């Protein structure tokens, strides 16, 4: 039962990472006020892509929670932190310190330990 659950989980995590990166790509300058933010939703394709990613993610997360115990699926969602850090370094050229790489390694180790239960 769990292989399909892992696939939907990874799809949800990938969509979360894509959504975060698209949103950050769109919001690199500060927005003043809710009206200005809504205006940008209308105008910016990166922002629209980010929101679309989050909506599709909700569908995959629903399948994931149907297939996997919450105790496994929710902590494994922390792979998003690792994915966003790697994606931000690669696509957005944000600096990633050694401490942060260590954190990513710790998250991967933790997810690996949880995966042993599957």
């Amino acid at each position: 039962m769990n292989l399909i659950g892992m696939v939907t989980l990874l799809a949800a995590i990938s969509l979360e990472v894509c959504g975060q990166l698209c949103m950050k790509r769109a919001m690199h300058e500060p927005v003043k006020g809710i009206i200005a933010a809504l205006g940008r939703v209308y105008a910016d394709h990166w922002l629209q892509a980010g929101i679309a990613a989050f909506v599709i993610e909700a569908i995959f997360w629903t399948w994931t929670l149907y297939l996997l115990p919450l105790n496994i699926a929710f902590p494994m969602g922390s792979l998003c932190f690792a994915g966003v850090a790697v994606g931000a370094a690669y696509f957005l050229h944000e600096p990633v310190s050694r401490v942060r790489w260590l954190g990513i390694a710790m998250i991967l180790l933790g997810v690996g330990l949880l995966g042993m239960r599957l």
Partner: protein
Amino acid sequence: MIPQSGHKVRLLLGLVLAVLLDTAVQLCWKAAEPQNSTPVGVILATMTSPWFAGVVLMMICQLFNWMMVLSLADVSLAQPITALGYVTVAAMSFWLWHETLTTVQMLGVGCILMGVVLVSRTHGSYKASGKA
């Protein structure tokens, strides 16, 4: 940024609320899931469930609560604290649905907690790159 003393109580309440809302969103989402269904049926049943209305409502509350928290503290301070949700979700799903909670699982959650704290230390990366 160290919050001023008058803001500390609001910040603390905001962080506690953030963890509670995170946990409640996941528990309600899981509670909204049907027992046996087709792939499309799962989506329809979940998203039309009253539990899922609670999920959407709490996500909206969380958005505004999180904006308040971020106005009082750096994201590098606030974000790792929300990782406490991994502990509360594990405890609650063990209690509510008798999901397994082994030593290895707790060890895994412990590693993730430490990892999230390290990843969220944004100041480290800016100092390391000489940008700040």
